[in-house]
């Protein structure tokens, strides 16, 4: 048993375990599908759960159960030993520190996904079918290959401040100096700092948006494009009147996916300012309260707020899906 669990520092053993894991898994899937396919006239319910059952099981253990526990903890004190009612929520909505955090989060959710998606879309549209498409996409995709922490370090370099009269080491301030201005402390003043931190997120996520949207753009039937062209539509008009409506479902998917990522992301703000200078967001505040302050109750309440913020996003998404299915 131990042999199957632990490889110690033996490299060969590690790779063997890796292969065993994959093979085991394939075998398991094979058995499930075999069983599902067995009966002559299976009920839909039986087949359906054959397909989704394994995933649901893992999700229940790994996500649903902790989520329910978190909701319960949000009504408990910092050790989860006493019931305190709505105290944690009252704190989250009354202390000025948390009000700023909530405001920032709203800003993030409203701005970051839109800008990232829009830039990804425009870029995907511009380079579509051009001669340098592969290279051009590669460049914008590059930030996806960097971890969020790595990306934040890169941008900290860009925003770096040195006083006037000393060599600038941050590119942005160097530009300002070249243009004859005074170097700025970019990360100090609200709300500019929040937008500058968002740039890092957008920088990463635009590649994600571009990739998925580019696929959809390529799936637009050519006869639609052709018909529009014959009607004299071109350039910007084509983009707004043909491309965007045609890829609407994909746009919604990308927007909501990025919006959810926005709500969960905390390492960027953590690396850039650690939430100082009024830049904190709910995800970071949650992390701090949970792991640095050991405030189980308050942090749980913040996590629940994240769920709540996302409910409108989910509803919107479901509506859009229904719409597009009706069209079909």
């Amino acid at each position, binding site marked *: 048993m131990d042999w199957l669990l632990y490889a110690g520092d033996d490299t060969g053993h590690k790779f063997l375990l890796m292969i065993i894991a994959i093979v085991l898994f394939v075998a398991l899937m094979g058995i499930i599908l075999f069983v599902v396919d067995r009966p002559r006239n299976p009920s839909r319910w039986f087949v359906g759960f054959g397909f989704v059952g394994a995933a649901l099981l893992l999700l229940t253990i790994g996500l649903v159960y902790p989520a329910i526990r978190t909701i319960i903890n949000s009504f408990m004190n910092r050790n989860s030993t006493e019931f305190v009612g709505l105290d944690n929520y009252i704190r989250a909505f009354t202390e000025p520190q948390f009000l700023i955090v909530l405001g920032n989060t709203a800003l993030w959710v409203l701005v970051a996904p839109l800008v990232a998606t829009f830039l990804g879309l425009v870029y995907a549209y511009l380079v579509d079918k051009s001669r340098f498409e592969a290279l051009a996409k590669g460049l914008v995709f590059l930030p996806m290959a960097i971890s969020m922490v790595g990306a934040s370090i890169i941008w900290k370099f860009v925003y770096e401040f040195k006083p006037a009269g000393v060599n600038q080491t941050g590119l942005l301030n160097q530009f300002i100096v070249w243009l004859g201005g005074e*170097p700025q*402390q970019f990360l100090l003043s609200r709300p500019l700092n929040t937008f500058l931190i968002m740039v890092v997120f957008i920088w990463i996520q635009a590649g994600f948006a571009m990739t998925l949207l580019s696929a959809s753009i390529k799936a637009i039937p050519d006869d639609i494009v052709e018909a529009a062209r014959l009607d004299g539509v071109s350039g910007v008009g084509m983009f707004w009147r043909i491309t965007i409506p045609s890829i609407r479902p994909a746009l919604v998917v990308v927007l909501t996916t990025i919006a959810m990522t926005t709500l969960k992301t905390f390492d960027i703000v953590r690396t850039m300012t650690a939430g100082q200078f009024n830049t904190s967001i709910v995800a970071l505040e949650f992390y701090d309260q949970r792991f640095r302050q050991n405030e189980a109750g308050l942090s749980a309440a913040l996590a629940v707020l994240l769920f709540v913020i996302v409910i409108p996003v989910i509803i919107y998404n479901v509506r859009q899906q229904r719409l597009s299915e009706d069209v079909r």
Partner: protein
Amino acid sequence: MTIRMASKRRAVALAATGASLALVLAACADTDDGGGEDGGGEATQATIDCAAYEEFGDLEGTEVSVYTTIVEPEAETQTASYKPFEDCTGVTINYEGSREMEAQLPVRVQAGNPPDIAILPQPGLLQTLVNDYDAVLPAPEQVEANVDEGWAPEWKEYGTVDGTFYAAPLGSNVKSYVWYSPSMFEEAGYEVPTTWDELMELTATIAEGNEGATRPWCAGVESGDATGWPGTDWIEDVVLRTAGPDVYDQWYTHEIPFNDPQIVDAFDTAGEILKNPDYVNGGLGGVDSIATATWTDAGYPILDGNCWMHRAANFYQTQWPEGTEVAPDGDVYAFYLPAQTADEKPTLVAGEFIGAFTDRPEVQAFQTYLSSADWANAKAAATPAGGWVSANSGLDQELLATDFDRLSAEILADPATVARFDASDLMPAAVGTDSFWNGITEWFASDLSSQQVTDRIEDSWPSN
């Protein structure tokens, strides 16, 4: 006694004879820069008196896991210092260092997966682990005996929660230092100040010669998600000097409110330097640049001649860029941050503590080793580049690598020294690692008054 320095961070040849014990350190000097060898790791071997660990029985082949915040390159000297114990007992120490340790340790503890031993960077974490999770085991009697023998009662107190002694101190830091360039001072004809008034006079004198970005002082408190701590150290040092150690004790225990007039006063006194655009922030910008300057680089303007003085702890010694000579006649050195009179020596200190989560014999044996003078000496011998001291009275100061480390050890051992532990480490986490850090950063970044900042921090003090 010979100490031959090899290149920084690499192994050193060292042979030493201590007073109470014999240390034989076989070493190989690795002077070339190309190799990928362990620093002190396999290079230093020390022999210690193994008898102390015999009472724990035959430990051959057992393992002890250690979880710390200490990562490369300091981790190498740390693991090297365990070698004598491993040789004595045959125990293997599994060392794990992570910068995320402070957040991860409670997770592991709650999940029932704690390490055997954790090196806690501050007493506040010990209190959390004891009060919230009841996870740390009281120190075994051998450890307590070692601490009673080697450490002052205050140090034992920091490792005690509600009357139970849990965690022995490991290393010690001396924080009341001002870094400066001896040659710059000499050229300008400045003397190292010995009282607070002299310090302020010197500051004013230097400020008259301000040119461009040059200022008397430089400071920086940016430190990732611990941003603000160097600023709280500043304030604590000033509280010790303007209000005195007794008020200091009342302050961190919350017998007086955080916004007590004496504390506000200390903020204002510190502000005479730190919030005065004529005095700060040499080579780094205006007052608000203190909030964004990385603490690790904040003293570097001294090397460029843009800054004259930088208050930072003894471990700032290891932060200077490679090739910087730290010596009384070198590129940089540090003087004691003066008090009101030359006779008082209030000193801000800090340190790590050893918490145990299991009580197997090998774990207790290792705990005993870490709390002993043997370990302190082995660590000193394994740290050729310096930057480490201990307040353990059994530490043989001759083994310390640099003049500066010996200066720190002297201050710690000096009977005139009134040592006080870093207050932010002793305050409740909601203040000590949150609102105090944020407050001080805000104080630099905005035009909030000392009163406003202290009021805000007082508001965040947990009610129970």
